[in-house]
């Protein structure tokens, strides 16, 4: 059953007790909270997700609560709990919704070792995926947001899940975390896209969460094959051209960007080197989003047949 079929009151009730079960990609999380901003955020951002009821198996049991003590009333805070334990220091209460997203990412990257997890955004077209690894500030999320509202499917804006069995990427379409100027840029270009209220002064500056496109959420069971690795870099004066880079260098750089590469030992090395072998690898310096879209669309031209069918 989809979350959008629920009333706001029913959702609130669930979130308080026994927790709302949310299916995001291959993971099921049971979320508990009585913080209104989180409940509203979930209602807005996760409307298209399936929310099974009853005694189902949940991968992660998480809660967002105000920690006990004086700070319940004075300079209020929020803590993220993973099955009763708080792995992080509390944040200001206003950052509760981004904390849910960060916490969920932490759950996945620390426990889902049945995948090789790379710190990269991933988008797909025609069954083939682009991995976009990049440090914070490289413009990865902005680029991803623009691509997935222009014909590409969102697999993830943060965590590329590589299957250890067949090397495919599992979709994990979740809200995209836009930061600072990107919020207005995407808001202007896509006024139809729904966003959470802005959170000021987080560790990453101002953050707003962008709802994942409905189609990407609906196709959360269709894996894709990695076909390209592109290291994006937003830079004034960037020419928006894809420049080939060495495969050996890409293997090393992407290894540095993996969350659990060392956990998998030789198996991880084999998987990653096979993946890079099959991918075309590029550096990509861009200033203009339309230019970027054109460059990426050039990688995956829509086959003539499909074009005819959609015409």
């Amino acid at each position, binding site marked *: 059953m989809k979350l959008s079929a629920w009333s706001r009151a029913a959702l609130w009730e669930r979130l308080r007790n026994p927790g709302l079960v949310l299916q995001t990609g291959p993971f*099921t999380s049971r979320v508990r909270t009585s913080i209104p901003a989180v409940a509203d955020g979930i209602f807005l951002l996760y409307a298209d997700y399936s929310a099974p009821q009853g*005694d*189902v*198996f*949940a*991968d992660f*049991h998480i809660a967002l609560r105000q920690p006990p003590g004086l700070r319940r009333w004075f300079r209020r805070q929020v803590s993220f709990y993973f*099955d*009763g*334990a708080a792995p*992080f*220091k509390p*944040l200001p209460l206003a950052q509760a919704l981004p904390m849910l997203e*960060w*916490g969920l*990412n*932490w759950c996945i*990257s620390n*426990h*889902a*070792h*049945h995948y090789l997890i790379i*710190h990269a955004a991933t988008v797909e077209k025609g069954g083939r995926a682009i991995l976009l690894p990049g*440090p*914070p*500030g*490289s*413009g990865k999320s902005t680029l991803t947001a623009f691509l997935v509202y222009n014909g590409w499917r969102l697999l993830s804006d*943060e965590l590329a899940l590589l299957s250890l069995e067949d090397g495919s990427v599992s979709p994990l379409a979740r809200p995209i*975390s836009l*930061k*600072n*100027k*990107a919020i207005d840029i995407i808001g202007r270009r896509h006024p139809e896209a729904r966003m959470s209220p802005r959170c000021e*002064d987080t*560790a*990453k*500056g101002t953050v707003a969460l962008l709802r994942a496109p409905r189609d990407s959420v609906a196709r959360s069971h269709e894996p894709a094959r990695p076909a390209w690795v592109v290291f994006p870099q937003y830079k004034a004066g960037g020419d928006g051209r894809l420049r080939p880079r060495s495969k050996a260098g890409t293997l090393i750089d992407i290894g540095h960007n993996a*969350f659990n590469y*060392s*956990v*998998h*030992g030789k198996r991880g090395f084999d998987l990653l080197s096979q993946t890079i072998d099959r991918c075309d690898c590029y550096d990509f310096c861009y200033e203009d989003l339309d230019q970027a879209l054109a460059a990426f669309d050039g990688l995956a031209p829509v086959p003539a047949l499909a074009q005819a069918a959609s015409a």
Partner: protein
Amino acid sequence: MISSHEVCRARALLPGILRRPESAARLPPERWDLVIRQARQAGVLARLCFQLDDLGLLTEVPERPRRHLEAARTLAVKHARDVRWELSCLCSALADRELTITLLKGAAYLMADLPPARGRLFSDIDILVPRDRIDEVEESLVEAGWGPGVKDAYDQRYYRRWTHQIPPLQHLRRGSVLDVHHTIVPPTARTPVNAATLTVDSLPLPLDTRLRVLAPADMVLHSAVHLFSEGEFDRGLRDLLDLSDLLSQFGRRAGFWQSLDSRAEALGLTEPLYLTLRYLDRLLALPTPAPLHDAVRRWQPPALSRSALDALFDRALLPNHDSCNDYLSATARWLLYVRAHHLRMPLHLLVPHLVRKSFRRPAAQENDDRRRRRAQVEQVLRAARAPRPGATTANAAQMRE
């Protein structure tokens, strides 16, 4: 509100499956939710994975919980790989010193290929070296890249003066933590242990003769004294399973039970051994082996203390998970923490230490808050100068986005 019947069922769940992994095959799928959570909390997920795989039952586990078991096993295999590598680095660092290094606990189980090593997650590596050589050992390790893992001056002094180890060392690049001990209980304990007695009987590892492990009886006694006197029970169930593994492994050897009995008496470690046997029986339904029945009768405390200890350990040794805790669990853990300290040091040392610890903690938190506030201010200033998307602070780095 959870009924007490529910709590009883939840408490019996994980010990039952660890004792009889074959019962997992009959588990209703939704029950796996709690098994995985409790096993993760107790640090025995990977162990359970190995146990089920040995019986050919892993494939019977529904896919979603099975993924967690396998992921935990993958992580445990990595830990074992890392510990072997760390030990080889350690041996090179200490190669110039003519020295006997005795491995303790996890590292010993791993290198001696003993059952508790399977599926184990390591938080540190424990070694034992002669007390009169400990300064040069520390010096060599610092040269090789290990630095103080504890920065606080009081803690540094406390470790060196009152405990059986130097302050934990952490490798500056690899982050691995090394505990260098000179004996197995603090010198201030009611029954101090002379480490020379242990090293004389220790055994060389077949593959690497630079490293030694404690003799079987000593290994069991160290594991027991560690579990029942350290005062931390987050891995209590796992430690109890270690002991059950060791006892069933060594129990097959001729003369083991007698040597365990006499060694416990000689080292003054009869109490932790008694408690081990008692809670193996109570929690995991593993009866005390016949050769130790007499000894257990000799060692057992009066009935009243027994019931008091049961009330505490029955709670503390279960997974520290919401489903197993009742309104007394936190108190039980706290009382055992105090008990452990009391066993380790006399009252005139203990009271000032605990007072200091209870005041230090809020102070440390206050410092963290201050640091965080400063980071926020700096960030705002930076943003005012030049807006930079994705500026990170310690918190963000921790979460990796």
